Every structure is written in C-alpha cells, then in structure tokens.
C-alpha cells in the first residue's frame, strides 16, 4: 500500500514532461524572435572598428555556416538543440552547453542556498503566531519581513559589500584590502545571504504559509486529532506546511533566477546570470538561447516538483487521475 502513489506520480510526471517539451519549444521560439528583431547583431559587434564592408560580413556569415533566412536559422538551431548540441559561442568559440553547465552549477548553489535562507527566516515568522498565539513580537517580525522584501536586491548587495568588506574588512576580494581574519572561504555565503533576504519572497512565504497554516489548524480534522490526544501540528503538516511551501517555492523560482542575475553582477559570482548578461551585451545568440532554455528548465523543474509532492501527499488528487 505504501507504493500506491507510484502510478499517479508517474502519470503526473509524464504529463508535466510533455508540457515541458511544448513549453521549451515556445520559449525558444519567442526568445529567438525577440533576438532577431532587436537591433545589433553578433557580427557587427565582433567586427567592430575593423572597417568591414557588407560583403566581408556576408562572407563571414557564410564561413560560420549561418543560414540565410530567419526561419531556417531557427530550425537549424532547433534541430541541433534536440540532438543536444547548443552550438558554439560566437564570442569565445567555446561550445555553449558545457559552459552553461559549468556556470549553471554555481547559480544552482546560489539560488538553492538563498531559498534555504529565505525559508529559515520566513518559516519561523510565519508559524510562531500559530504556535504561541499573538505575542508582542509578532508585529515587529512581520513588519521586518515585509520591509526586507521591499528592498532592492542590488542595493542590499552593495550595503553588504560596504559593511562586510569595506567596513569590517572580513573578506579580501574587492577593493584590494587584505583580510585580517580567516573568513575568506566563507565569502560565498555573502551573495547567498543577500539573495535570500532580498529576493522579495520572504513576505510572500510568510503570508501564504501563515494563512494556510492558521486555516488548516481550524479544520475539523485537526480538532479531532487534538481530541484524541495527537499533535495538531503533525496532522496539519501536510496540508498546512508541505503543500503551501512547495507551492510558493515553485512559484518564486523565476523571481529568484532574476535576482541571481543582479546578485551575480554585484558579487562577481561566476554564474549563469553573469553569463547571460555578458552574452546579451555581445549579442551572443547561441549562448542566450541556451540560457533561456536552461532557465525555463529550472522553472519547470520547480513546478514539476510541486506537482509531484502534491500528488504524493494528497490521496484524492491521485484518485482523481486514476478515474
């Protein structure tokens, strides 16, 4: 009986994966169109200041094997992508996919780490009133959560740099100060902290989780649990904690990725956001397309995890699929 959720989960996974494939197609096409119609192109940037004629440009394109029409360009890219070949960067000449994977892992550290920070701050603030009733500390903590969520992340980043590097000289990385304390290995915590605090998600987690938990704690079945001497929290956990948390985290992944672009700039973090920024400046089309696809995959992965958790937790959802 413990494995009763395997089949619904497999069905759910299949459905979500099919949706993801469609979505990637759509995302790549839209991004391609936007790039195509935006001014500038990689070759004019590549050959900048070299007094090239239109003829030379055309020859360069031919030499690099760029198809002539926009649709054949897209289909050419799509065909390669399906086979796992994301092309090579126009700027660096390196293959795109290994490069994205290399920096993508750094971004993963940053985003997952910051999500943990967000939850560590938001969950206690959200649940303490349900646990201990209204205390005088609730209000200031909630205000803190909302205030902090309203701070722009780049500003917060510079404030952190100012405090920890400029003022206390804890880390040597910027401005050429030498560290007086042996904290350098911990430098990576700084951007994680900044993104975790400043990604604007804390207030949403607090509000959503608090609403859901206090609603569920009022449910009849939680009262029954208390009447038989069981812990209300244990019975409210699935509906009041697990489901809302996965919901909000999945919904917030795009925002966190967006925040990562900024934080990676501020902290010189070698991640996907920086790569994307650089590629956008260079009009490095293959890199931009690759990043768009990988970012869309990140987001889909979040939604997929949320769906799977929901189906595993909620027996009714799996039952409905079977019928």
């Amino acid at each position: 009986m413990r494995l009763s959720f395997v089949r619904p989960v497999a069905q759910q996974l299949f459905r979500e994966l099919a949706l993801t494939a469609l979505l990637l197609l759509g995302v790549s096409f839209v991004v391609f169109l936007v790039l195509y119609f935006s001014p500038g192109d990689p070759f004019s940037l590549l050959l900048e200041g070299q007094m090239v004629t239109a003829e030379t440009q055309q020859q360069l394109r031919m030499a690099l094997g760029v198809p002539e029409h926009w649709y054949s360009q897209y289909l050419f890219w799509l065909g390669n992508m399906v086979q796992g070949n994301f092309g090579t960067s126009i700027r660096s000449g390196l293959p795109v996919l290994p490069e994205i994977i290399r920096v993508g892992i750094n971004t993963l550290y940053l985003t997952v780490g910051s999500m943990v920070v967000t939850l560590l701050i938001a969950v206690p603030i959200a649940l303490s009133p349900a646990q201990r009733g209204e205390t005088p500390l609730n209000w200031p903590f909630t205000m803190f959560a909302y205030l902090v969520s309203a701070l722009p992340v780049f500003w917060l980043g510079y404030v952190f740099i100012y405090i920890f590097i400029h003022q206390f000289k804890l880390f040597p990385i910027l401005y050429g100060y030498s560290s007086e304390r042996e904290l350098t290995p911990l430098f990576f915590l700084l951007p994680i902290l900044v993104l975790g605090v400043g990604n604007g998600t804390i207030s949403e987690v607090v509000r959503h989780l608090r609403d859901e938990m206090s609603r569920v704690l009022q449910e009849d079945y939680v009262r029954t649990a208390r009447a038989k001497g069981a812990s209300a929290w244990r019975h409210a956990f699935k509906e009041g904690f697990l489901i809302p948390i996965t919901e909000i985290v999945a919904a917030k992944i795009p925002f966190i990725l967006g925040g990562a672009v900024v934080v990676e700039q501020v902290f010189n973090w070698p991640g996907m956001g920086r790569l994307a920024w650089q590629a956008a400046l260079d009009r490095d089309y293959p890199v931009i397309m690759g990043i768009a696809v990988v970012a869309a995959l990140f987001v889909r992965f979040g939604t997929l995890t949320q769906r799977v958790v929901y189906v595993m937790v909620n027996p009714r959802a799996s039952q409905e699929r079977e019928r």
Partner: protein
Amino acid sequence: MSETIILRIENLHTFFYARSKQAFVRAVEGVDLEIMQGETLGVLGESGSGKTITALSVMGLVSTEPGVISGKIEFSSKGLQQNLLQDLDQYVQHQRKNGRIMAVQKDCGGWQRKTERLMGDIRGKEIAMIFQNPQSSLNPFVTVGKQITEAVQLNTEIKNSREAQQRALHWLERVKIDSPRLRYHNHPYGLSGGMCQRVMIAMALAAEPSLLIADEPTTGLDATIQAKVVELLMELKAVLNTTTMLISHDMEVIGRLSDRVAVMYGGRVMESGSVQEILRSKDGSNHPYTTALLGCIPEEKHIKDKITLQAIEGDVIDTMNIPGGCRFYPRCNQKNDRINQSCKEHEPALKEISPGHWVRCWLYYDE
C-alpha cells in the same frame, strides 16, 4: 449503575466575542450538569443552545476567544480527580452586574498553554469525543486505519505498531464495517458518511475512555444510516457500558439512548431528569420549552390527516442579546397573569419538582 459522579460541570460560562457586532455571544451561561458512572446523559436542545460548546469546553477545545471564562469542571476517574478549569481565575478577570458577567479580560494564550498541560493525560485517554460531520472530521490525508491505530498507540498500553494495527482492525470489526481489512487502507473520502461515522466511533472507543462525548453523532447522515448508527450505539452501550454524554437535537435519538436527559436553551439547562420523566412524562409536568419541543415530533395523525407540523414560534434566542428574565419568555406559550411579571424580570433557578427532576420555570413556584 453506581452512584459515582464522573463529570460534574458547575456554573460553566463560555463566551465568544463577536468583533463585527462588538458584543458577547453568551454561548454557555451558567450550565450545571452531572454524569454518573455508566449512564448516558442526553443533552437536548435546538441548534445554538450551547450543547456543543459545553462539550468542547470540557475537552478544552474551544478555539474562539475568550472561550471558557468561569466555572468548574470536575472530572474523576480511575483514582484521578481534578478540576479541568483549575486556576482559571488567575487568567480571567470579569466584572459582574446583577450576577451576570458583563466584561471579560482573559490571557487566552496563557490559559491555552495551561489547558494543554491539564488536558494532556485526559484528552483522548480519559475523555474521547465523536464529532458531527464525520467526513470533514477525519484527516483526509491519512488512511482511516492509521487514524485508529494512532488513537490506540497514543491512548492505550499498546505501543507496538503491529499490535496496535490488530487492535484497530478489531475496533473496525466492532463497529460493523464490512471487510475491515480493505477499509483499513481507505482514505476518508472513499467512505460514505455512515462508514466515516463508524470510523469516528471506533477511533473514540479505541482509546477505551472513561467518558465518551458524542456530539450529534447522527447529524448529516441519511435517515436510514442514522437509524443504523443509533442501533450500533445501542449495541455498544449494552456491551461496553461506557459513560456517555450524548448531544443531539433529535429527541428520537436521545430517547432511545439516554438514561437521563438535560434540556438546554440559550446556553442554560432548563430542565433535567430521567428520560421517562422528561420525554415520556404522563402528567405533562415539563418545562414549557420541553413541552413545545415534544409537540414538534410528528405523529401518525399528522401524516394521516395532513395536519401541518408543529413548530415553536419565534427564533432561537439571540445569545448576543439575552433579556433579563427567563430566556424562553418571548417564545413561551404557557405564561399566565400569575407569573408573567416574574417571567419578564427574573430568571428562575432550577427547582426539584420530583426526586431527580429539575425544572427552571416560574410555573412550578407557588409564589
């Protein structure tokens, strides 16, 4: 039936504060009840008369503020005797006017923590409760079998999970669920309302409590299922002889299951006595409210002659705005010139009109 009192409720007050109307809901105002070892006490009354709130007050499960604000709930069983509202005075301050509580200040969080400590060993173990609306009262995320097993493990000596599971299956059989082994693995939504109520009953009885509180066990079920649940409760009562507080607005259910009856109206007990004296009284010496309730039971002649069913005139008392006199006065059809003035201005106390039969009505006062 021994004469040991298991539960004695004295002058219980449970209020709510209706923020939107800036007024108190006097859900329970001065309830006195006693339950003897082995008996079934039926608590009868219309919706909104404070029956459920009384039960929840006993369980310490009133979740709306300010909740229980004064009174005494003495619970004694298995050598254990304590006031479940011990030290309540330290958490509540109230102002009385003419003997009625007019304003309350309560440290609800503090009292909540205190209740959890007081009730820790009692809730579930000593007092178990069956709720109305069984389908929403069972955890939808957990199989019904596991929910019963949990009750066994929490409240009895059986801690081993395999044994507890056996015990849960045994209880599923006891409450007459078909193929209990299959049902064990069902989630509540997969079961009918009647089955869910059987599961609730099994879950409450699995703890082998000294006192069972059944709050409207038949409400929300089909008429045929209701009859079956009542039958089941009667059988279990005959075998287990569990002391029960049965709450219902259904006189049929109360009449079949109870030994004694308390009739509640507007948050107060209006009449109490043995089931014969109250529901099958020959000389009609009842509280006018009980008489009116009894008049609402459809009889054969109603159906044959197509006579309109009786109903009590007016609405259930607005517990936010209780008049000074008798609570039932505005709807009473037995008021006469002799007592009219008293009815309007003063609320009578319970008077023992025959041994064990108490009525709160001026009709039974000579002067």
